């Protein structure tokens, strides 16, 4: 049996390094809101690379990726594809947003939309939708951290306590350092989890089957359907091809709409940084391969975990690896969870203050008041996410689907802002409200979905139709304002 004290020791060292990196990073930015939320628009390629990479390399990828490969086979390949398709439009959108942000001082996506449509209520509604989408995503990351710690300590650290410890550290460095803490810990966490994923992903197939090819040959002989898309569904039957396709489409459309990701355009130093980040981003998609290898190694493994999400810790614990390696694995998993969770907590709090609070109360706060409010909101988001994580019965994938179904509703507003002069504030608001409510309703009543289509896609359709119809009935902002806004977006520096 693995000595759990060694494991906990390694994890403790990892958490302390995180704290040091996260707290020190704070002294690199100014005390302004732009410093706390957008890092004084000074992020270089290294930090941007890991910040965007961390968003795909989350607890979902680290546990859910192997979990899907293990229980659903090739269905997991959809995760590889959607990130690249999802980031491609950001080549244009990211640079446009960055130029506008430098000119007009935005730090969030919703405030950009509010200015474009000359209506603060757009920011309030988009901000509320953003926060609603981010909470289940935060909860998912916390559950992931809890699952890992619970397994490797054989239940000595229960799930709720594990999540509390990991996210206690996150809240401390987010409180002190804001986005600088998020950025620089992501670099450390990113390097750490990548080394771990590749080591385990290549080592386990060798150890258990004598090689990667040998492992897949064995799976091919026993269960060939595992190696061909669409793979299997949760019950083990062949997954619907349409479900595989719509999972890719919804996730790709929603990917860069994630506010914590989109708003990093406002943190990038210059346009070239955004371009380099996108250029390098697909490497992170390829880094999913070793995680899938770990999951596939479980297909013919001698014993089964209690849930598919736990296949990674299960194999690591039962295949006789030294305790230090198990500890490093555990830390790698926490890194995957925390590197996504910290950006979410920070992003949701920034939006709640910048867009919702300021928009609703119409109070103008000075920089220090605003920063303090964001800090308290980060704490609040952490607590709410934690409660959802503890109370929710949904699996990691279930939580992710709810989150993506909601966040994809921001897509028509963002695309509308850049591509359709006829879009109006009321159209945007009506579309967001209609799309989000329909998606929410279908999450609660899944049987109402026609042909099992993803609820996010149905909401999106309603959203777009509502946006167009209401916009046609109302008056868009003056042409002069739109011309100037679009000219700023398109003019390269």
């Amino acid at each position: 049996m693995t000595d759990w004290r060694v494991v906990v020791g390694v994890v403790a060292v990892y958490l302390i390094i995180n704290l040091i990196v996260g707290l020190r990073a704070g002294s690199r930015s100014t005390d302004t809101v732009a410093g706390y939320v957008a890092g004084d628009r000074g992020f270089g390629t290294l930090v941007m690379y890991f910040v965007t990479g961390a968003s795909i390399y989350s607890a979902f990828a680290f546990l859910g990726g192997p979990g899907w490969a293990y229980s659903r086979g090739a269905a997991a390949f959809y995760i590889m594809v959607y990130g690249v398709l999802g980031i491609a439009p950001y080549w244009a959108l990211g640079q446009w947003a960055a130029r506008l942000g430098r000119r007009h001082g935005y730090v969030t996506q919703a405030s950009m939309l509010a200015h474009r449509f000359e209506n603060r209520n757009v920011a309030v509604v988009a901000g509320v939708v953003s926060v609603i989408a981010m909470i289940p995503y935060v909860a998912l990351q916390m559950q992931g951290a809890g699952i890992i710690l619970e397994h490797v300590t054989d239940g000595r650290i229960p799930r709720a306590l594990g999540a509390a410890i990991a996210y206690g550290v996150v809240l401390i460095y987010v409180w002190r350092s804001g986005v600088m803490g998020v950025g620089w810990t992501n670099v450390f966490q990113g390097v750490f989890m990548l080394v771990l994923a590749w080591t385990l992903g290549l080592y386990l197939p060798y150890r258990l089957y004598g090689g990667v090819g040998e492992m897949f040959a064995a799976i091919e002989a026993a269960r060939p359907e595992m190696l061909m898309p669409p793979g299997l569904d949760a019950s083990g039957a062949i997954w619907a091809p349409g479900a595989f396709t719509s999972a890719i489409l919804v996730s790709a459309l929603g990917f860069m709409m994630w506010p914590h990701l989109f708003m990093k355009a406002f943190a990038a130093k210059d346009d070239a940084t955004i371009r380099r980040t996108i250029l390098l981003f697909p490497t992170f998609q390829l880094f999913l391969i070793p995680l899938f290898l770990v999951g596939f190694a479980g297909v013919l493994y001698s014993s089964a975990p209690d849930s598919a999400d736990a296949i990674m810790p299960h194999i690591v614990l039962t295949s006789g690896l030294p305790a230090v390696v198990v500890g490093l694995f555990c830390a790698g998993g926490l890194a995957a969870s925390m590197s996504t969770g910290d950006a979410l907590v920070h992003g949701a709090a920034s939006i709640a203050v910048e867009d919702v609070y300021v928009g609703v109360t119409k109070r103008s706060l000075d920089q220090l008041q605003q920063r303090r409010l964001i800090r308290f909101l980060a704490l609040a988001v952490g607590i709410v996410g934690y409660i959802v994580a503890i109370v929710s019965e949904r699996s990691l994938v279930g939580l992710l689907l709810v989150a993506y179904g909601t966040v994809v509703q921001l897509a028509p507003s963002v695309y509308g802002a850049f591509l359709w002069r006829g879009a109006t504030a009321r159209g945007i608001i009506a579309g967001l409200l209609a799309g989000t409510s329909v998606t929410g309703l279908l999450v609660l009543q899944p049987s109402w979905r026609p042909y099992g289509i993803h609820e996010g896609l149905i909401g999106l359709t309603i959203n777009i139709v509502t946006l167009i119809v209401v916009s046609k009935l109302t008056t868009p902002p003056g042409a002069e304002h739109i011309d100037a806004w679009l000219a700023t977006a398109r003019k390269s520096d």
Partner: protein
Amino acid sequence: MKRPATIVAFAYFIAMTIGCTFPFLGIVNRVRPFVLGLPFMMVWFAAWILGAMAVFGLLYQADRR
């Protein structure tokens, strides 16, 4: 005033969307041959990802001029 690199990128990502989803996926769907020990469909998706990097590289070069 679309530049050639932009047109290539548009075409590539439309092709990638089709090539990586059903119904087209049904045509290429197979387990063998293995490449570097990986089953064919995993390599298929990885190849599209590498291709996307090449296209981003092309856009990057075009934007520098």
